[in-house]
């Protein structure tokens, strides 16, 4: 059926900040959708609060609303834009939930907005577990025995009927939030009770445990003419019991015969029809009993999901793009398969390679968190790899993780039988390390059967690891590294590093010998059809075969190294910069070549760069891509400054291997990262840095600390996201830190800096071309110093800095950029304390804030940086129009203030005893994502950022206040306003007294450090029990600070706004007032920027 004629404009809802379970895969899908809609001549209206996304770049929509994704704000956008249709199936559960709410409250009907992509009825059928179960039965499928519970007593009764272990699944939550497995009543009351809270409908499903069964997922698409295709089958290496997002998965399914696969396919098709997804995609999960083949249908997502992104990258079939076209009314057979350019999308991709996805976790950021993998997703990112065999793909995937210890260790093992037995028993509990334990056990001689019994992992996968073990042993025993031995190992995915380890020689030597023997990878193409038709898109992966498919070219190529799997501290922001480089350099006439291994991203969309290499970002893999491309045509250079620490960490070695790094040189990077060298730069420029020193051991650290005075900020060098960074107040903690820190980065000393209490922190992003500086923007942190910049809110333009201070900042930035030798982007953190400007650190690369600054000022900094790296000057970019003709980020006149707020994943992590992990913020970054609030006044912009991060500010209800002494006077006016708004006030003793003296009544609450007594609850208890709607807590010093962190943690876990500064409190008053008066407006980014430029 051709395109619907009744749709001229579409509102697309994004997924908001990156959180666990909902990451940048929705930027990938949303960006595709926006592109498709625009190409179809449709007016695209977008709402998404996440400024780090490509989709919110102003050129991807006609009207981009960077506003909170709540029913209230989406309603305002609808009222203002009057779209013909709403597309909510590409923005994850967030978008779907908002759409459901708007449909139910009648907003869609009132403004005559058609929901496209999935109908309300289908969403309900797919997501309501009871109704879904009925559907499964009606098509001849089976569901696990299950009982819906609405109370704790329901839980007890249901568990009695099903028998332990039972699985707990709260309804309408994303990423399996609140799910778990209970082996007894104490587990059940804990997890089930929390699940009832997490579910917006207070509904929890208890079901029979399928732990140990094989787990599969099918990705489907259906058009309005009822044509259905299965895009991809995915098999989980981890059996049932581990959330699919946390499982190692493989595509296509490896251990099903056609008969069994077709049974899953038939069921899937019957289900998508019965549920009624009529113009879009869905994924359906199955469990298969490994002994009998009994099939249980687990669940469906009636929308584009994380798995769809994976399936798209795994097959080359762009699910989100096709979903957008189906939503417009096209039929599958009317859509052309981009990759072949001649065949239709109404087919099922065939793979002639194996894809493996591995999750990346961040437990080290959350001390005390239970590291057992369950049905609640805990991973923060993932890497995908492609190979021509499962062993090859698996080893490539593991090295793509860039985590120490992730790759298999093939060293010589001498383990006693009892040690092996113990290792086997460990594999019964799924953790991040399980596969490595399995591998070690196999390598130490454990039987496949014993490991299958313990872990439930299919013997086929275990056998593949056994084959790797055998290969490692052959490699170890070979008299010399001849061509046959080495070729065989490379075909099994062994890295040069691993081979070196096994042979006891260096990686470099292995590489040299390998290349001398002419053993190089070839690059094959992902083409959706296993070679049946020619592919027009160069989407490549490396493997050891005979024939390569890299086409020669005449245009000079620029290789852009991406940022690898998302992790805390290195997320979508860096992908944003890489994507921008690809766009800018393509436009400037280069052939852009992207190298990355993160399937969630826009950078690994084959539409982004001219060529895509889906490869691990290790030295070996990057060198081979470089080699292949240098055979294909001229290379203008390799960009390493945009993908974060991952490519930056490779810069020196790449340069040493003869790879031309463009932009800031590796030696300049080194200059900025090397404390002593950098001090010289500062000294020469006459700039101040906090007193500091370097230490190689505890004694040296103590010496430095005593010289410069406590508190000190300590950290290992060469880190991103403040990994391993701490503020230390006394000797004992310092010694403990050194013990831990030397493990993190053994070849680099520990940095010890004087920590500036009570300073204002400032972040600057700037461009430098060797002669001229372009200041991107100056951001002022809202939180006090000492909290990692990635975790603190900030405002642009800065609220409290005067013209003179900004001028000093600009001058300092220029001196540093010049002194370091930057060609491209630089990010500098300053602190203003006692009227002095201190330089905290400088990073000669794209920073996390580049997308935020670009969006707030309308200037594409990463694009400019990529051009500067290749030799274009800032004056040239100004005359071209890529940079403003005049002025910079400090002088642009604008009506708006942009506020960035961090989003933290506390609610994902619990200790083994079920308690929340300690939700403390500090110098080590812990947030997974960010939102942006945009408005005329700081107050409203701030309130919007809070609404986007935590949901809307309350209009009335209960408020808790506890402020530091210095803030007590300033709190009176705002708190009395809240009283006027009808808020009930709770306060700690000191604050309560001051309030009382000013005629404000409040209820007494005890501090956490005081503990509860029989009469009065602590604030933590009140927050956790849901009494409090808004928290105001301004911390100071080390005692109250600890209390504040607890309070903040509890608030975040509960999802209520928590205000930590008086500035923010005043802002919140303005915000709530505006909300109450209905004055909160929405305005598109394009409109704001038009005024600005």
């Amino acid at each position, binding site marked *: 059926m051709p395109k619907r004629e009744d749709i001229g404009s579409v509102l697309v809802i994004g997924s908001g900040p990156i959180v666990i379970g909902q990451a940048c895969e929705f930027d990938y899908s949303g960006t595709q959708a926006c592109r498709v809609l625009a190409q179809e001549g449709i007016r695209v209206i977008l709402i998404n609060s996440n400024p780090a996304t490509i989709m919110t770049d102003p050129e991807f929509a006609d009207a981009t609303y960077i506003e909170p994704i709540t029913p209230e704000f989406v309603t305002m956008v609808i009222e203002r834009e009057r779209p013909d249709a709403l597309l909510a199936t590409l923005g994850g559960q967030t978008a779907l939930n908002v759409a459901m709410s708007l449909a139910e409250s009648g907003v869609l009907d009132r403004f005559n907005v058609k929901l496209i992509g999935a109908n309300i009825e289908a969403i309900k059928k797919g997501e309501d577990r009871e109704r879904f179960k009925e559907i499964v039965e009606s098509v001849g499928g089976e569901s696990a025995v299950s009982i819906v519970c609405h109370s704790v007593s329901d839980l007890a009764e249901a568990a009695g009927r099903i028998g332990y272990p039972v699985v707990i699944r709260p309804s309408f939550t994303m990423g399996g939030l609140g799910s778990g497995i209970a082996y007894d009543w104490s587990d059940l009351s804990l997890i089930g009770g929390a699940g009832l809270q997490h579910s917006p409908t207070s509904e929890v499903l208890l079901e029979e445990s399928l732990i140990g069964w094989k787990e599969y997922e099918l990705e489907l698409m259906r058009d309005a003419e009822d044509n259905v295709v299965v895009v991809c089958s995915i098999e989980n290496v981890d059996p049932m019991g581990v959330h699919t997002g946390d499982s190692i998965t493989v595509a296509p399914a490896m*251990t*099903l015969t056609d008969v069994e*696969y077709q049974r899953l396919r038939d069921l899937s098709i019957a289900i998508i029809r019965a549920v009624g997804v009529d113009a879009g995609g869905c994924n359906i999960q199955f469990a298969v009993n490994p002994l009998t083949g009994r099939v249980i249908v687990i669940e469906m997502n009636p929308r584009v999901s994380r798995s769809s992104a994976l399936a798209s990258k795994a097959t080359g079939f762009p699910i989100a793009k096709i979903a957008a076209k189906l939503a417009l009314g096209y*039929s599958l057979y009317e859509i052309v398969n981009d990759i072949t350019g001649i065949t239709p999308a109404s*087919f099922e991709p*065939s793979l002639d390679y194996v894809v493996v996805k591995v999750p990346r976790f961040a437990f080290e950021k959350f001390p005390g968190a239970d590291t057992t993998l369950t049905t609640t997703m805990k991973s923060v990112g993932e890497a995908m790899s492609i190979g021509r065999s499962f062993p090859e793909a698996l080893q490539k995937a593991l090295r793509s993780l860039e985590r120490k210890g992730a790759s298999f260790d093939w060293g010589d093992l001498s383990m006693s039988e009892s040690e092996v037995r113990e290792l086997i028993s460990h594999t019964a509990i799924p953790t991040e390390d399980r596969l490595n334990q399995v591998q070690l056990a196999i390598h130490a001689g454990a039987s496949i059967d014993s490991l299958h019994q313990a872990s439930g992992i299919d013997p086929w996968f275990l*056998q593949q690891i056994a084959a790797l073990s055998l290969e490692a042993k052959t490699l170890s025993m070979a008299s010399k590294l001849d061509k046959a031995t080495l070729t065989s190992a490379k075909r099994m995915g062994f890295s040069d590093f691993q081979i070196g380890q096994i042979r006891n020689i260096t990686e470099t030597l292995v590489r040299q010998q390998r290349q001398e023997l002419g053993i190089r990878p070839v690059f094959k193409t992902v083409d959706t059809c296993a070679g*049946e038709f020619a592919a027009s898109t160069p989407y490549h992966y490396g493997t050891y075969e005979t024939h390569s498919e890299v086409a020669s070219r005449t245009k000079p190529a620029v290789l852009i190294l991406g940022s690898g799997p998302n992790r805390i501290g290195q997320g979508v922001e860096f992908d944003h910069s890489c994507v921008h480089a690809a766009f800018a350099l393509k436009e400037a006439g280069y052939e852009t070549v992207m190298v990355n291994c993160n399937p969630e991203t826009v950078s690994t969309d084959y539409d982004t760069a001219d060529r895509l290499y889906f490869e691990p970002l290790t030295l070996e893999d990057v060198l081979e891509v470089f080699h292949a491309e240098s055979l294909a045509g001229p290379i203008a250079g390799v960009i390493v400054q945009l993908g974060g620490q991952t490519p930056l960490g490779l810069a020196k070695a790449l340069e040493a291997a003869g790879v031309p790094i463009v932009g800031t040189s590796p030696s300049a990077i080194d200059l900025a990262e090397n404390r002593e060298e950098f001090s010289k730069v500062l000294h020469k420029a006459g700039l101040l840095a906090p007193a500091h020193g370097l230490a190689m051991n505890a004694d040296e650290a103590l010496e430095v600390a005593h010289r410069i005075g406590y508190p000190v900020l300590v950290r290992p060098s060469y880190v991103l996201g403040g990994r391993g960074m701490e503020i230390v107040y006394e000797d004992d903690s310092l010694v403990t830190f050194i013990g831990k820190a030397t493990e993190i980065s053994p070849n680099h000393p520990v940095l010890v800096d004087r920590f500036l209490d009570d300073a204002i922190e400032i972040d600057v992003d700037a461009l430098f071309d060797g002669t001229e500086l372009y200041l991107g923007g100056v951001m002022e942190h809202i939180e006090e110093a000492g909290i990692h910049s990635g975790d603190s809110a900030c405002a642009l333009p800065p609220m409290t800095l005067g013209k003179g201070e900004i001028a000093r900042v600009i001058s300092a930035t220029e001196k540093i950029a010049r002194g370091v030798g930057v060609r491209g982007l630089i990010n500098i953190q300053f602190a203003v304390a006692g009227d002095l400007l201190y330089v905290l650190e400088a990073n000669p690369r794209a920073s996390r804030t580049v997308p935020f600054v670009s969006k707030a000022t309308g200037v594409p900094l990463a694009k400019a940086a990529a051009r500067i790296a290749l030799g274009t000057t800032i004056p040239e970019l100004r005359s071209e129009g890529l940079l403003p003709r005049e002025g910079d980020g400090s002088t642009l006149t604008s009506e708006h203030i942009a506020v960035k707020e961090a989003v933290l994943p506390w609610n994902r992590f619990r200790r083994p005893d079920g308690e929340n992990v300690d939700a403390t913020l500090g110098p080590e970054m812990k947030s997974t994502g960010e939102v942006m609030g945009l408005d005329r006044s700081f107050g409203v912009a701030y309130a919007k950022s809070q609404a986007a991060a935590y949901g809307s500010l309350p209009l009335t209800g209960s408020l808790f206040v506890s402020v530091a002494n210095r803030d007590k006077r300033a709190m009176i006016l705002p708190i009395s306003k809240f009283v006027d708004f009808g808020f009930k006030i709770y306060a700690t003793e000191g604050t309560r007294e001051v309030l009382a003296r000013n005629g404000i009544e409040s209820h007494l609450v005890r501090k956490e450090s005081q503990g509860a007594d029989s009469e009065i609850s602590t604030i933590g208890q009140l927050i956790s029990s849901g009494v409090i709607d808004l928290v105001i807590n301004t911390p100071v010093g080390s005692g109250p600070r600890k209390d504040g962190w607890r309070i903040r943690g509890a608030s975040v876990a509960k999802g209520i706004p928590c205000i930590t500064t008086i500035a923010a409190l005043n802002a919140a008053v303005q915000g709530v007032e505006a909300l109450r008066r209905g004055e909160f407006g929405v305005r598109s980014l394009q409109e704001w920027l038009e005024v600005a430029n």
Partner: protein
Amino acid sequence: MSQARLVLDDGTVFQGRSWGATGKTFGEAVFSTGMTGYQETITDPSYHRQVVVMTSPQIGNTGFNSEDYESDRIWVSGLVARNPSPVSSNWRSTETLDDALVREGIVAIKEVDTRALTLLLRERGAMRVGIFSGAANEASEDELLEFVRASPEMIGANLCDEVSTRNRYSVAADSGLRISILDLGIKRNTPRLFAEKGIASEIFPAWSTIDEVLSVNPDGVFLSNGPGDPSTAHHAVRLAQEVIRREIPLLGICFGHQVIGQALGLDTYKLRYGHHGINQPVQDLRTRKVEITAHNHGFAVSAPVGDAFETAFGFARATHVCLNDGVVEGLELVQHPVLSVQYHPEAAAGPHDAAHLFTNFKQLLLRARGQN
């Protein structure tokens, strides 16, 4: 493990390792893109005298079982794969693929750059190929190439008689309908699906006469799939014409479809590299509905797409096309109860999207019976 070589008739040589039986084998090289169903594929008689290149690199993971045979033996003359599994993992598995190949004497080769081979076959078309392992691999490349070039071509090959059942047999069903099947290389799943629809089958050898086929007084006649060049199927074509003339419902699948096409006066032609896979989009031109279907054909019927066209039996029309390349995938006669499809509604391996064809045929049978 010993080395093995794969030699194409254009002189291209691929190195690999010996797999399955040791020795030499010849056939027409075709690639199959199915990611599941290797057991069904290699036991499908339509692959007689073909060397199948599996594009899916991991083959044999689920081994061989006693239930998924599509005939009583492996028919491919050789098998090529990238990374066959030495073990099998499945609750129904009874032996490994490797063991099955050895047991049946099928010479195979592994660790071949199957993607490069596939692209070559795509560009240059299906070719004769030889696989050489063990002592057979000791000859020079030139000698091996000579062997390959001396092996028979697929064009002009009449192979149905070689794969057909020697003796007539029956597959029972509940209701009273019965059809006669001319076995040109039938797969087991076809009479099984007829039986599921309540249609009993009487299966005849490919050389049976019209009188023999009609001797059981069938409600309809079915022409099965099979190997070889359809233009050699003179006997089957004449038989089909006689069935049509007598107004007996007729259904053909794959080779049977090509026979019916010729019975209507249409020509068949060889596709460059054929359709061998289980992911092919076929559109029913009457309803616009697209089905994902299993294909296994190196030849096709040349018929006009669009308006109905005149034949000796009145108007006929193309009912289905493959959306990938526009190849005609189905025919029907307007005034006679005759249907044929080039694809495999019986699947095995492959999707079940087109299984309703058996129901459609049953309706034809019932209607014909009502009229008689």
